[in-house]
């Protein structure tokens, strides 16, 4: 029996939206017919494999590829020497990363060379015959090592800006700190002076891997002055721009086709394996397919591990005076999305409270480890568990129930979240009350069990630039061309619903193909919970243009009608009790058996530049609750139940929202309880397979998960919608940490492994012993 409890607050009147229509891609995926990049092929295809560094940092003296080139089936071997005719560095934030290592390797796992051969086995075999001569260089494989005063520098030479960092003026690199972001208001020293309660602790958050089931995969072809890619990238238009710049082509000479993605979660955002595949195909003169193994994808991207010091100041009555946060994110050897993650983490640092003073400093730090980029809920997940645990500590010190404390201090709709940015657009108090009620807040205490809630905000939407077109063919069926990539979240279904709602027709008569940059209108990206809100708005506007054309044509049918007297329903345009079907209108318009109606919609910043400082598009609510049970003998923490709130403005497809929250919550559970990438002191990833990097399985599922959908119509997207999918992941670790504290064990490091928790229990019991007379 299902224990999912759904609360809906709005009476539904719509047809296409607001109902859980079945996913348009479900049957193809169940039958195995749905194509992913790994399932695809093209004529003349070769298979590429990548030789990766097995040391954390070294000078490359020579690479001998002659033996490999003579191996059976080998067509081309790529090294840095093949890239002298182009500027071979990429990176959307900082242009710091060579396509393959040039002169130096900076992390264990960095590509040094690549082989294209007739079969994958031949390519793999040839890798063993490439001989690289190294001299080891000093390795800085941790934040502490990289931040030491005399630390070796991961990068020397000037910082180069990437083409799409969106962060305004970038600060100069300082040592291994490649980016800094912070802000302050009020007087934090005064807050410190006035405070009766000061919570001041150091915290650590681990590197974790997104583990989308499908690894990074790409087919590349470089023929003449055109590049074609079939890639499982989340942001095809940003990858297109980057590939065009790298290989010296205009963007319209680069075509990227994106089939289904086998999960993304940020791991396939921005540019990953595409440049090396194109460079190899360029050298081979034939199309090349590269499909990563899991251990390769694990060194392609990951979540930033972090160290943080947070101080929260309050009076003895629990009046909040200020919060001071300094954190360091380990972005690995190349920046990837680290600068943006740093800015978003800083934004999330104060938490959604009314602060007389805040002082936030974030640092993005290079180390000789694999690069870190985007992963679902970044920023919020890093700091919410810290900030919210300090809120609970203050509430307890002031003798106030943590939920009541939040009622008193949480920001209200319309209040400022960040100076100059969008005011709060959600009812946080209402949301956290629902999350608390769902887990039985206020019930009698049970030994070794604890309850916790957490509240946070995530700057969502990224840069609001999306366009879409909607095409109605002569038979009345519709295609929606939109750049959002289908990676499991259900965007194709939601886009079909949005168009169907505007056009008053059955979503099943609408197809949403995957993105093909040759035909699909521009869309910035698929991430930051933006697709329904931003790209969905473009689809709505495009569909309205088609509807306008239908009405315009209908005026020729109904001589007496005024435009305002027409309405659309069930695939027909109506005037009083007469109606005409869409195909008949199209036939009338063109006087022919063919033709089509086209609508175009675009979304751009409403005001100013749409820059980060003026954003975000909306604040994604991160609210969760958890009940945990602690085994004090073993340190094992069991999650008995969770709750999460999807505050979505308007639920286009409630069932898909539930899946986003459940899936996000389970990823949050993994991050909270056991996921952690472990590196040696030399920067080599130790647990690079699923044998020793564990992700949640069926047996980790809590007995009860409650997903609460809140619809207040307060989103900027179509029909008042706003995005979701990241909040539950960001909020759940914080709720779990607070629940464990409620059970008697406060923690300052994640994940909450039995060993870590057990050691903390011994520490606390030791302190209690000492405290006795």
């Amino acid at each position, binding site marked *: 029996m299902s224990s999912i409890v759904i609360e809906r607050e709005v009476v539904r009147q719509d047809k296409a939206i607001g109902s859980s229509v079945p996913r348009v891609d479900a049957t193809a995926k169940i039958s195995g017919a749905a194509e992913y990049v790994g399932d695809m092929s093209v004529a003349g295809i070769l298979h590429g494999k990548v030789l990766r560094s097995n040391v954390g940092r070294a000078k490359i003296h020579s690479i001998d590829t002659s033996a490999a080139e003579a191996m059976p089936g080998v067509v081309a071997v790529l090294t840095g020497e093949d890239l002298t005719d182009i500027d071979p560095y990429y990176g959307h934030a900082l242009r710091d990363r060579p396509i393959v290592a040039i002169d130096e390797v900076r992390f264990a796992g960095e590509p040094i060379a690549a082989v294209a051969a007739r079969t994958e086995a031949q390519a793999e075999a040839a890798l063993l015959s490439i001989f690289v001569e190294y001299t080891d260089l000093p390795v800085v494989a941790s934040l502490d090592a990289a931040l030491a005063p005399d630390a070796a520098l991961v990068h020397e030479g000037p910082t180069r800006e990437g083409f799409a960092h969106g962060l305004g003026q970038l600060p100069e690199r300082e040592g291994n700190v490649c980016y800094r972001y912070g802000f302050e208001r009020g007087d934090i020293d005064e807050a410190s002076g006035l405070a009766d309660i000061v919570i001041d602790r150091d915290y650590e958050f681990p590197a974790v891997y997104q*583990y989308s089931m499908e690894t990074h995969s790409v087919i590349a072809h470089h023929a003449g002055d055109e590049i074609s890619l079939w890639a499982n990238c989340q942001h095809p238009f940003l990858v297109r721009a980057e590939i065009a710049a790298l290989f010296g082509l205009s963007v319209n000479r680069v075509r990227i086709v994106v089939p289904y993605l086998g999960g993304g979660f940020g791991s396939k955002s921005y540019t990953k394996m595409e440049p090396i595949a194109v460079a190899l195909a360029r050298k081979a003169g034939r199309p090349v397919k590269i499909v990563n193994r899991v251990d390769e994808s694990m060194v392609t991207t990951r979540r930033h591990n972090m160290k943080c010091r947070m101080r929260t100041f309050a009076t003895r009555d629990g009046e909040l005076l200020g919060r001071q946060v300094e954190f360091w994110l380990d972005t690995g050897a190349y920046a990837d999305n680290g600068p943006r993650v740093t800015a978003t983490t800083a934004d999330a640092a104060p938490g959604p409270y009314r602060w007389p003073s805040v002082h936030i400093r974030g640092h993005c730090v290079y180390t000789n480890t694999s690069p870190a980029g985007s992963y679902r809920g970044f920023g919020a997940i890093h700091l919410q568990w810290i900030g919210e645990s300090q809120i609970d500590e203050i509430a307890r010190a002031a003798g106030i129930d943590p939920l009541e404390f939040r009622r008193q201090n949480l920001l209200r709709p319309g209040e400022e979240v960040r100076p100059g940015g969008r005011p709060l657009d959600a009812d946080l108090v209402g949301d956290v009350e629902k999350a608390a009620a769902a887990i039985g807040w206020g019930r009698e205490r049970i030994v070794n069990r604890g309850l916790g809630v957490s509240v946070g905000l995530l700057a969502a939407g990224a840069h609001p630039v999306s366009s879409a077109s909607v095409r109605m063919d002569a038979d009345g069926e519709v295609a929606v061309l939109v750049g959002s990539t289908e990676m499991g979240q259900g965007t194709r279904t939601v886009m079909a619903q949005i168009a169907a709602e505007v056009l008053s027709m059955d979503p099943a008569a609408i197809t949403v193909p995957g993105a093909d940059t040759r035909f699909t209108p521009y869309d910035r990206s698929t991430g930051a919970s933006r697709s329904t809100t931003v790209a969905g708005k473009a689809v709505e506007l495009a569909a309205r243009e088609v509807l306008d054309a239908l009405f315009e044509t209908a005026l020729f049918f109904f001589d007496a009608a005024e435009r305002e007297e027409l309405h659309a329903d069930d695939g027909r345009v109506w005037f009083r009790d007469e109606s005409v079907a869409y195909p008949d209108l199209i036939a009338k318009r063109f006087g022919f058996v063919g033709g089509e109606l086209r609508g175009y919609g675009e979304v751009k910043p409403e005001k100013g530049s749409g820059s980060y400082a003026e954003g975000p598009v909306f604040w994604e609510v991160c609210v969760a609750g958890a009940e945990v049970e602690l085994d004090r003998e073993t340190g094992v923490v069991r999650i008995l139940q969770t709750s999460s709130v999807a505050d979505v403005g308007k639920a286009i497809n409630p069932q898909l929202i539930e899946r986003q929250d459940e899936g996000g919550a389970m*990823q949050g559970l993994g991050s909270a309880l056991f996921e952690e990438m472990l590196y040696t002191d030399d920067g080599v990833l130790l647990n690079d*397979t699923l044998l020793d990097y564990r992700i949640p399985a069926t047996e980790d599922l809590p007995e009860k998960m409650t997903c609460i959908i809140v619809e207040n119509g307060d989103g900027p997207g179509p029909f008042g919608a706003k995005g979701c999918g990241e909040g539950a992941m960001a909020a759940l670790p914080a709720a779990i940490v607070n629940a464990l504290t409620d059970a008697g064990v406060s923690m300052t490091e994640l994940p909450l492994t039995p060993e870590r928790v057990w050691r903390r229990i011994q520490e606390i019991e030791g302190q209690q012993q000492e405290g006795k007379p």
Partner: protein
Amino acid sequence: MQRRIRSLRIHIDTVINGARFGGDVEANVLLIDFLRDQMGLTGTKQSCEVQVCGSCTVLVDGRPVSSCVYLAYELDGSAVETIEGAKDSDFYQKAESALVRHAAVQCGFCTPGLVMTLKSIAENGDATDEAGLRRSLSGNLCRCTGYRSILDAAAEIVGGS
């Protein structure tokens, strides 16, 4: 001088999705590569390569195996069934209907392997209460759904009624 090692090939007689197959396979070829690359059966997906995630699950003589760690030549004298072969069965209709209704499919990469495990559970009479299903499906990882919908759909698909 380059050494040339001729690969060892082994003759097998097997049944693939109900059709007889006789031929030589290379001794070191994994079942998943044989199915995907040589037979064109790409419904079976590869993820972890170490027999943990279950994406590559196929049935050999009705029992689930991870095709990522199973050598193709071991099929000799056995029958293998992949998602493409499972499609034409009453079980499949029931499975598809329940998985769609519960929206237990998201990115879909783990789904064919999951369906094959469910088919084995249904046909072999494994425990189908919640605890039994959690145990039986613990070898089919899914990063998208959070499992609740999968377990609910599974209970319908392999449950008594």
